[in-house]
């Protein structure tokens, strides 16, 4: 057993002076193991929905505040909160959970504009921003501001009103929070604060905004009561990091002993491998969760 472990990590005569873990067969094994692990995480999320997921501290109030803060820094007017637009945004988020999709248009062919009109909002111009898997509001707004198209929505001078949906649920087996921004300017003839339709479907986890938004309390995180057990990203990072540590450690040992024993062999560049894998590892570790659309 010890001999086998030694052959795995130490270059010697029995492994032709190259650690077995650095040979193509073991590198292929690493790739297969990691892919299987990712597939296992995906399968687990489908078999036991809600075990994996992203906890969130996002609040509607903070999304509104930070959005208006970005507009003010650009010399634009603040967007006025509209509860009907918020209902439209919440319905859109709930529709994505119900029909298990992540896009502006639903698989049934519903466009974002269908949600505006279904909520009773008549618009002259309108826009939609989507986000998921983010931990806090600052990172959501930060990601949108980095994207030219989402930034254009936030900083569009044509928009006068905004509605925000922050809804938690399970998407593709992963517990997450969806954030939807609906921007619009009402038609001149329309009523800006129409009543919420009586037959509207209201997500249970979301507080329904009242028409008088100034008295609305929506500052609490929506997901605080039901945090998922494990973040799939953290789990993948942990396993990927372990693989990285194993391979890089063996590369160091292999390189050191080859130099020390003055072994002459045709071999790849350990320094190159370590440099490339180190960049991949750093990008993997410092990447955060969160997607926008």
């Amino acid at each position: 057993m010890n001999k086998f472990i030694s052959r795995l990590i130490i270059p010697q005569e029995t492994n032709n002076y190259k650690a077995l873990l650095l040979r193509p067969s073991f590198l292929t094994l690493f790739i297969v193991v990691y892919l299987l692990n990712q597939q296992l995480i995906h399968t687990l999320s489908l078999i036991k929905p809600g075990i994996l997921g992203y906890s969130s501290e996002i609040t509607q109030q903070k999304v509104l505040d930070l959005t208006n803060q970005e507009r003010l820094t650009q010399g634009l007017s603040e967007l006025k909160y509209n509860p009907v637009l918020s209902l439209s945004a919440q319905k859109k988020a709930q529709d994505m959970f119900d029909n298990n999709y992540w896009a502006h248009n639903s698989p049934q062919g519903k466009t974002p504009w269908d949600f505006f009109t279904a909520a009773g909002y008549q618009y002259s111009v309108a826009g939609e921003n989507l986000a998921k898997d983010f931990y806090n509001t600052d990172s959501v707004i930060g990601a949108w501001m980095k994207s030219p198209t989402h930034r254009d929505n936030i900083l569009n001078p044509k928009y006068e009103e905004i509605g925000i949906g922050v809804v938690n649920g399970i998407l593709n087996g992963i517990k997450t929070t969806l954030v939807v921004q609906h921007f619009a300017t009402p038609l001149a003839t329309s009523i800006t604060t129409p009543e919420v339709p009586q037959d509207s479907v209201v997500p249970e986890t979301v507080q329904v905004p009242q028409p008088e938004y100034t008295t609305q309390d929506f500052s609490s995180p929506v997901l605080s009561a039901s945090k998922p057990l494990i973040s799939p990203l953290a789990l993948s990072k942990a396993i990927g990091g372990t693989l990285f540590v194993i391979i890089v450690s063996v590369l160091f040992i292999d390189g050191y002993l080859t130099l020390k024993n003055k072994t002459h062999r045709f071999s790849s560049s350990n320094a190159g491998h370590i440099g490339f894998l180190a960049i991949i590892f750093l990008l993997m570790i410092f990447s955060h969760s969160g997607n926008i659309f």
Partner: protein
Amino acid sequence: MMFTEIKQKPFEYLILLFLLTISAFAFIYFSYDSFIQRRVIYFSAGTYFLWSLYHHYRRGDLQPSIVIEYLLIGILGIVLLSSTLF
């Protein structure tokens, strides 16, 4: 060990450092766009593989087993990053 390798061919490792740095910055810069990020990962692995061909050709030891090893390390990098994040 690493430094000995680098000292022997500093210019080639400088090229590698440049390519990897460009890739890292591009990956971070396009952090809002997973489509472009995926392409950056492929670009990074692809340029690493091409660099290895150049490096070993210049060293005079461009062997099939070495080429396969770089190919697998490149694929491992793609798998580690893309299947974790996307």
